[in-house]
C-alpha cells in the first residue's frame, strides 16, 4: 500500500485501538475485514484514495465505538453482568459508605432541626420548614440504599432523590453530587436499554480513577469565570455611570457569570478532591472475570 500512507496508518491505528481487548476471534475478524477493505479501496482505480480512506475512517468512529461497547456487553453475558452488578453495588464499593454517611448526617440534622425548631416557641416555624428537606432526604437516601438490595433501580432513584434534597444545603453539594453520579451509574439509570446495562467500572477506568479530570474541569471553570470578569472590566461595555450604588444589569450579568462559574468550579473541584481521597485510601478496582 503505497498510496495515502498517512490515511492508511490512521485507519489501521484506529482499528487496532478500538478492537483492543476484545475476544481474539472478534478482534481478528474486524481487523482483517478492514485490512481487506483498505486493500480493495486502494487498488480500485476509480476511488480517490487518501481522502476517501481517511473520511471513511473518521465518519465511522462513532459506530466503531458503539460496536465495541455492544460487543463488550454481549461478551460479558447476563450472568457475568449480574455478578458484576453485585460486586459494584455491594458493600465493597466506595459509593455505599459515602451514601450512608450522607444519609445519616442529613437525617440527623433534619431530625434535630425538627425537634429543636422554633415553631413551638412562638417562632415563625422557618427552622422547622428548613429541616424538612434534609430529614426527608436522609430517610430517602437510607431507605433507597436498603431497597436497592431487592429493587436496584427503584432504590437508586430514591437515593438520588434524597441526595437532591441534601444538595439544597450548599455544604453538601459536592458529596450529594458524588452520590447522585454514583447512584446513576450503579443503579443502571444511565441508559434506557436495560439489556445494555453498563458496568460501573471498566477495567482501568474506575470512577475514582478520573478524579484529576474533575480538578482540571474545576480549574477551567474558574479560569473561564475569571476571564469573563477581566474581559468585561476592560471591554468598556459597562457604562461609566454604573456604580456599586447604582448597578446596571450589564454589570450584574458579568458578576453573575463570574459567581456561577466559581460556584461550579468549587463543586466540581470538591468532587475531584473527594474522588481523589477515596482513590488514595481505597484503591478500589472492579475487574471483569
Amino acid at each position, binding site marked *: 500500500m503505497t498510496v495515502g500512507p498517512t490515511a492508511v496508518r490512521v*485507519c489501521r491505528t484506529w*482499528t487496532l485501538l478500538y478492537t483492543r481487548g476484545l475476544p481474539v476471534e472478534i478482534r481478528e*475478524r*474486524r481487523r*482483517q*475485514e*478492514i*485490512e*481487506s*477493505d483498505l*486493500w*480493495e*479501496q486502494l*487498488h*480500485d482505480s476509480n*476511488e480517490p484514495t487518501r481522502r*476517501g480512506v481517511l*473520511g*471513511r*475512517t*473518521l*465518519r*465511522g*468512529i*462513532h*459506530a*466503531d*465505538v*458503539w*460496536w465495541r461497547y455492544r460487543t463488550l456487553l454481549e461478551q460479558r453475558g447476563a450472568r457475568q453482568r449480574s455478578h458484576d452488578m453485585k460486586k459494584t453495588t455491594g458493600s465493597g464499593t466506595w459509593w455505599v459508605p459515602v451514601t450512608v454517611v450522607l444519609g445519616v448526617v442529613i437525617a440527623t440534622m433534619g431530625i434535630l432541626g425538627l425537634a429543636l425548631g422554633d415553631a413551638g416557641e412562638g417562632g415563625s416555624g422557618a427552622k422547622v420548614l428548613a429541616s424538612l428537606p434534609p430529614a426527608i432526604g436522609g430517610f430517602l437516601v437510607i431507605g433507597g440504599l436498603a431497597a436497592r438490595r431487592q429493587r436496584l433501580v427503584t432504590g437508586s432513584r430514591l437515593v438520588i432523590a434524597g441526595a437532591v434534597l441534601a444538595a439544597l444545603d450548599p455544604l453538601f453539594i459536592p458529596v450529594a453530587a458524588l452520590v447522585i453520579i454514583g447512584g446513576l451509574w450503579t443503579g443502571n439509570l444511565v441508559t434506557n436499554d436495560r439489556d445494555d446495562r453498563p458496568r460501573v467500572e471498566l477495567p482501568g477506568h474506575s470512577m475514582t480513577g478520573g478524579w484529576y479530570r474533575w480538578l482540571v474541569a474545576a480549574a477551567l471553570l474558574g479560569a473561564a469565570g475569571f476571564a469573563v470578569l477581566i474581559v468585561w472590566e476592560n471591554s468598556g461595555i459597562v457604562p461609566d455611570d454604573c456604580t456599586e450604588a447604582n448597578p446596571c444589569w450589564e454589570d450584574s450579568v458579568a458578576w453573575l457569570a463570574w459567581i456561577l462559574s466559581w460556584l461550579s468550579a468549587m463543586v466540581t473541584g470538591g468532587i475531584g478532591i473527594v474522588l481523589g481521597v477515596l482513590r488514595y485510601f481505597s484503591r478500589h478496582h472492579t475487574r471483569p472475570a
Partner: protein
Amino acid sequence: MLPLEVAILSTAIDFVASGTGRFHGFLLAKHLRGAEGAKLLTAHGTLYKALSRMEKAGWLVSEWEDPEAAADEGRPRRRLYEMTAAGHAALARATEQASPAPPRDVGWNPV
C-alpha cells in the same frame, strides 16, 4: 429495520440477480454509493457494524474466502456475505410496512 439495512439487503438481491451471489464489504460500499447516488462510500464503522448486526439477526451469513484464492491474487482474504431466506423475508416485511396503506372507506355506509 434501518434504512441502511434495507439498502444492504436490496443490494444483496441485486448481487444475486447479477449472478454475484456473495459479496464483500468494499464491493457492497461501492454499490450502496451508486444506488443512493451518494458521493462518499459508507464509513467503515457504519458498514461493518451493520453487517455484524444483520448477521446476528440471521439476515446474512458470512465466511472467509479460500486463503489460497486471495494469495494467488496477492491480496488479503475477503469476508464474503450472502443473504439468507430470513433476510429476504425481513426485507419483504420492511418494504410492505414502508409502502402506503390502501385508503380506508370512512364514509357512512348503512347496511
